[in-house]
């Protein structure tokens, strides 16, 4: 069978009885086995997946399909609670946690008949942009530079989700994005990554990092796949009080790739001499492409762009320090015994959390502590208003905004800077979007001089995912990026 099947191709093959869900699932389980070296999965649920695939095939025979995508194997970031299946957030502290309930998003996937192959590696509690903070070790990017044999990071925090799709270990995957955790790894792995509007997808049952920023979304091989999987997971959920009451839409059926007459904003603050020439070229080429296809380019300004990253590094750790207070060795996860209750808490958390998570809890506690709360936390929330306002004003003039997804392509696993702030800079183009709560997508556009994928980011106003997907499809169909990594990991 053809390698690198996408969602749409797989569903056509299933419909034409040219394959079965069991056959597809077996192929992907074999692919996963061969790619152990990439370390994409924390847990592989082979037996479960084959059982579910068999049931899907039975439904097909009986004409009782749950959806048109019934029987397609996907992967799930290990941040979504899955009933009776270990869910670790790639942390030692949750290394033995088996949820007694299913997250809203994964339940929707089950209801659509999708088959989960297992739980995908990520940065610990989704904190990181390299996938190196995982307790289960880093994920390796399936892409390698054509000039070196060094292993590259897949980006993060949804590094396993992006690498698994790029390496064809699943047809699509679920990730989460708090400051770029879907788009940055999608950009590093030549995949499509969609961060929906805040509130579009239920957060119920997703292990919380920063509750006012977290959103789940798909990582896929094509824009059509992103529309399909997004449509499956979106919609109001009474169990999440921040879930939007807006009606879900038929994003997949309504895909239309025309950009004629659309206004595309190019923010001057994203231009920089530090941007690699190949990324700048990809950005320029995409501008020309959109122009050729009938869109109008408009120079815009988002004056607080450079304030977004420090603002994020106040708000996200503040919310994280509060959310992660629940891991204390009492209700779930590991426990380290102590002489008394406080010592038990401290020992459990010190042994259970990794360095990056501890750093963020400490920073979060600092900015929320008495005497600093107004100067840091409230101040950051005010700047968040300014950032959101920048976008509101821009969307009075333009339909969408085009930027690079990341300031560089994938870098070497061993080459991460020592200063955490240098690592945080990976998310400089993605973080403002989470603070504003608007949707954005990263799509692969070209490869750089080392043959590594460059992703471009499209951004629209809140709840305009349809427009976002349409423009992305236009770019995809015209750019015709078809590059896939060489499968060097196969024995």
């Amino acid at each position, binding site marked *: 069978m053809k390698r690198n099947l996408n969602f749409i191709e797989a569903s056509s093959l299933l419909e034409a009885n040219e394959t079965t869900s069991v056959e597809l699932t077996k192929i992907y389980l074999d692919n996963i086995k061969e790619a152990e070296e990439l370390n994409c999965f924390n847990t592989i649920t082979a037996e479960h997946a084959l059982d579910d695939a068999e049931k899907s095939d039975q439904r097909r025979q009986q004409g009782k399909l749950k959806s048109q995508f019934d029987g397609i194997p996907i992967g799930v970031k290990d941040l979504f609670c899955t009933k009776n299946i270990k869910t670790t957030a790639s942390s030692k502290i949750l290394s033995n946690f088996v949820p007694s309930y299913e997250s809203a998003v994964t339940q929707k996937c089950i209801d659509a008949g999708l088959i989960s192959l297992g739980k995908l590696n990520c940065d610990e509690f989704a904190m990181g942009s390299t996938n190196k903070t995982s307790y289960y070790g880093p994920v390796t990017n399936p892409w390698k530079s054509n000039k070196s044999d060094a292993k590259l990071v897949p980006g993060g925090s949804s590094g396993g989700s992006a690498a698994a799709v790029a390496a064809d270990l699943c047809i699509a995957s679920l990730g989460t994005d708090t400051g770029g955790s879907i788009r940055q790894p999608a950009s590093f792995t030549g995949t499509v990554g969609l961060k929906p509007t805040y509130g579009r997808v239920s957060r119920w049952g997703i292990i919380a990092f920063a509750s006012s920023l977290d959103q789940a979304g798909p990582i896929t091989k094509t824009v059509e796949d992103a529309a399909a999987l997004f449509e499956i997971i979106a919609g109001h959920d009474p169990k999440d009080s921040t879930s939007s009451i807006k009606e879900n839409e038929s994003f997949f059926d309504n895909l239309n790739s025309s950009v004629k007459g659309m206004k595309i904003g190019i923010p001057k603050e994203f231009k920089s001499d530090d941007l690699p020439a190949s990324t700048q070229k990809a950005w320029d080429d995409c501008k020309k492409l959109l122009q050729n296809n009938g869109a109008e380019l408009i120079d815009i300004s988002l004056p607080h762009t450079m304030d977004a990253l420090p603002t994020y590094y106040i708000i996200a750790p503040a919310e994280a320090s509060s959310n992660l207070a629940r891991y204390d060795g009492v209700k779930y996860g590991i426990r380290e015994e102590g002489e008394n209750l406080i*010592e038990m808490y401290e020992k459990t958390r010190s042994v259970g959390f990794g360095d990056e998570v501890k750093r963020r809890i400490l920073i979060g506690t600092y900015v929320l502590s008495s005497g600093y709360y107004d100067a840091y936390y409230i101040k950051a929330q005010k700047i968040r208003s300014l950032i959101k306002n920048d976008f509101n004003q821009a969307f009075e003039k333009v339909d969408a905004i085009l930027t690079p997804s990341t300031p560089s392509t994938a870098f070497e696993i061993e080459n991460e800077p020592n200063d955490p702030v240098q690592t945080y800079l990976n998310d400089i183009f993605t973080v403002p979007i989470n603070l504003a709560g608007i949707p954005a997508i990263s799509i692969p556009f070209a490869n750089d001089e080392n043959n590594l994928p460059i992703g471009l980011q499209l951004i629209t106003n809140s709840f305009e995912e349809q427009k976002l997907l349409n423009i992305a499809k236009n770019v995809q169909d015209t750019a015709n990026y078809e590059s896939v990594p060489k499968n060097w990991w196969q024995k």
Partner: protein
Amino acid sequence: MEFDKDGLYKLGKLSKIQIDESKLKSLSSDLGSIIEFIDRLKSIDTENVDPTSNSLDQSLVMRDDIASDVNSANEILENAPQKELDFFSVPKVIE
């Protein structure tokens, strides 16, 4: 910038995280660098700006208060590191 040692121990106490002696230096330099980074915001004028705590332009949705029978005590206690009867068990708090 280095984060001062006493401040770091105090933060550790507040966060219930033990500060590892051997990592004290790198941790205080990491935190110092992050604080220096976020301190850039101090110069931004935010007079008369309201804070945003959540970007969703929607008032809080409430669901109907209907009892449901999910997550039984037994299921939840399955994950407890220590339990006794129907309770989570912790080290003795009162002498």
